C-alpha cells in the first residue's frame, strides 16, 4: 500500500494523472459547449474548460514538496518554493474568467426576461 502511495507521489506519475484529469475536464466542457442547448449550461461548460486549463497549468508547474511562493514566517529565500509565475497568471485568469462568467450569466438573464427563452438555437435563429 505504502509503495503504491510512493509510486503515486512520484512527479512523473502525479503529473500524468493531473494531465489526464484536466484534459478530461476540458473535453467534458467542450462536449457541453457543443452538445447542450441551455444558455446556462453552455456558460457552465465554458467555465469548466477554463478551469481545466488553470488546473493543468498549476498542476504541471508544481511538484510535490514545494511550498507556496510567499515570503513570510522566517522564509526569506526562494528555495524549495513553487514557481510563482504560473500561480500569479492563474490567479489573473481566474479573475478574468469569473468576470466573463458573471457578464455572460447577467446577459443570459436579461435575454431570458425579454424573450422567455434560454435556448441557444433561438439565439441563432433570431435574425431579421
Amino acid at each position, binding site marked *: 500500500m505504502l509503495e503504491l502511495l510512493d509510486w503515486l507521489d512520484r512527479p512523473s506519475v502525479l503529473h500524468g494523472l493531473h494531465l489526464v484529469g484536466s484534459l478530461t475536464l476540458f473535453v467534458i466542457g467542450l462536449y457541453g459547449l457543443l452538445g447542450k442547448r441551455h444558455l446556462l449550461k453552455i456558460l457552465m461548460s465554458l467555465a469548466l474548460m477554463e478551469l481545466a*486549463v488553470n488546473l493543468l497549468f498549476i498542476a504541471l508547474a508544481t511538484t510535490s514538496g514545494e511550498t507556496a511562493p510567499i515570503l513570510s514566517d522566517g522564509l526569506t529565500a526562494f528555495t524549495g518554493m513553487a514557481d510563482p509565475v504560473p500561480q500569479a*497568471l492563474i490567479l489573473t485568469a481566474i479573475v*478574468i474568467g469569473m468576470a466573463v462568467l458573471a457578464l455572460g450569466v447577467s446577459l443570459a438573464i*436579461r*435575454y431570458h426576461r425579454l424573450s422567455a427563452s434560454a435556448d441557444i438555437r433561438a439565439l441563432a435563429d433570431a435574425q431579421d
Partner: protein
Amino acid sequence: MEFSASPIWFIALPMLAAFSSPLWVRWRVLDQLLLGIPLGLLLLALGLFATVQQAPLIETIVIAPPLGIHLHLDSAALLLVALFCFAVTLVAAFLWHGATETHLRGRQPFVLILLLLAGGNGLVLTGDLFNLYVFLEIAGISAYVLTAVRDDRPALAAGLKYLIIGSVAGVFFLLAVVLIYLQTGQLNMAAVAQAFAEIPPAMQGLIAVLALIGLGIKSELFPFNFWVPDVYRGSDPAITALFSGLLVKAFLFVLVHLAVLIWIDPEIARIWLMTLGALTLMVAELAALRQDEMRRMLAYSSLGQIGLILLAFGFLHESTAAGAFFHLISHTLAKLLLFLVAALLLRRVLSLHLDALTGAGRVYPLTVGLFVVGALCILGLPPLSGFMSKLWILQGFAAAQTFWPIALILVAALIEAGYYFRWIRVLYAPAAASAVTDSKTSKTAPESWATYAPLLLLVGLMLLLGIAPFVIEGALVDAARALLDRDLLIQSVLGVAAQ
C-alpha cells in the same frame, strides 16, 4: 524617461479615464473627454513617429524584480496605435453631435469605448504573452458589452453569441500560452521566439494550432467567422464601425506578429496564413453577394477585406506587407464611413433591408452619396485610397513573381463590384411610394452639419491618401520592415542576436 515618450500612456490614459468616469459625469465632460483622450493620444502617436523610426521604444514596468510588464513600441505598432486612436476619435465625434440614441450616450458607452481602445492598444504594444491574453480579454469584454448595450432582444442575442464564442477563443489562446510556458519557461515574446525551436515538433504544432484557433476566432478568419455577421447585425452600426476598424485589425496584427516571431520556418507560416487569407477572402465575398441587409453585407465585405489583408501579410515579404498596412488603413477609413452612414440611415428608416431602401438616394442625397464613396473606396477605384492600397499589394505580388494571389484579388474585386453596385442601383432606383418616403415623416428632423463633419473628414482622408500616398509611404515601409524583421525585435528586446 521623458513624460511624453512612454508607450504606457496609450493604455493607461484611456483606462484611468474610464475608471474615473463618475467624476466626469459630475463635471459633465463625458463627451469632451471621449473625443479629447483619443485625440490627444493620436497627436502623441503622430509626434512619436520620428523617434520610433530611429529605434523602437521599449518600456519595462517592474513590479518586483523578476516580474514585469513589457511594452514594445516599434513602427508597426505605432502605426496601428495611431489608427486606433483616430478611429475612436472619429466615432466619438460622430456620437457627440450625431447620436440621438440614449444607449450611446452617457457613462456606459464612454467607459466601454475607452476600454476597447486600451485593449486594442495593449494588444499591439505588449511584448509579453500573458499580458496579451489579459488585453485580449479586456478588449473582448468591452466588445461583448458594447454589442449588447442597446439592451433589446437582438442586441442581447448578439452580445451573448459574441461572449460565448469570444470566451472559447480566450480559452484556446490561454491553453497555448500555458503550453508555451510549460515548455520554455518564458512569457516574453522575444525570449519565446528564441526558445521555441527547441520544443518538440509535435508540441510546436499543437501550440500553433491552439493559438491559431484562438486568434483566428478573434480576428474573424474562415472557418471561424460564422458568428461575425450576426454580431454585426445585432449591434449598433456606430459600434460595429469600431469592431471592424479597430478590434479586428488589432487581432489580425497579433496573429501575424506571433506567426512571424514564433514560427521559425517562414515557408510553413506563409502557406498557413496565405491559405487562410485566400479562403476568408473568397468565402466572405461570395457570401456577401446574397445579403439583403446592409449591416450583414458590410460585415461580409469586412471579412473579405480582412482576408485580403491577411493574404498580403502572409506572403511575409516587405513590399506586400507595406501594401497590407496601407490597405488596413484604407479599409478602416472606408468601413468607418460605411458603418456610420448605416447608422445615419438607420436613424431615419425603419430597416436597412435592401427592399426598404429602394430610392433612398433621392431622399437623402448626401448620406447615400457618402455610402457610394465608401463603396468605391472598398472596390478600389481611383482616386480613392482603396485603389492605391490594392495596387501596392498587387505590385508587391507581381514583383515577387507570384501570380495566383493577383488573380484571386482581381476576382474578389469583381465580386465586390457585383454586390456594391447592386446596392447602389437599388439606392438610386425610382422610389414608388416606398417605405423610405413614408418613414421620413415619422422620424426626426434633418441632421446638422456637425453630424456629417466626421464623415466628410473620412472622405477627405481617402482622397488624400489616394492622390498622395507618398505622405505615409515612409511610415508604411518602416512598419512592414519592423513587423517582418524578427532578429531586430529579438535583439532590441533581449540585447542579443537571434541564432
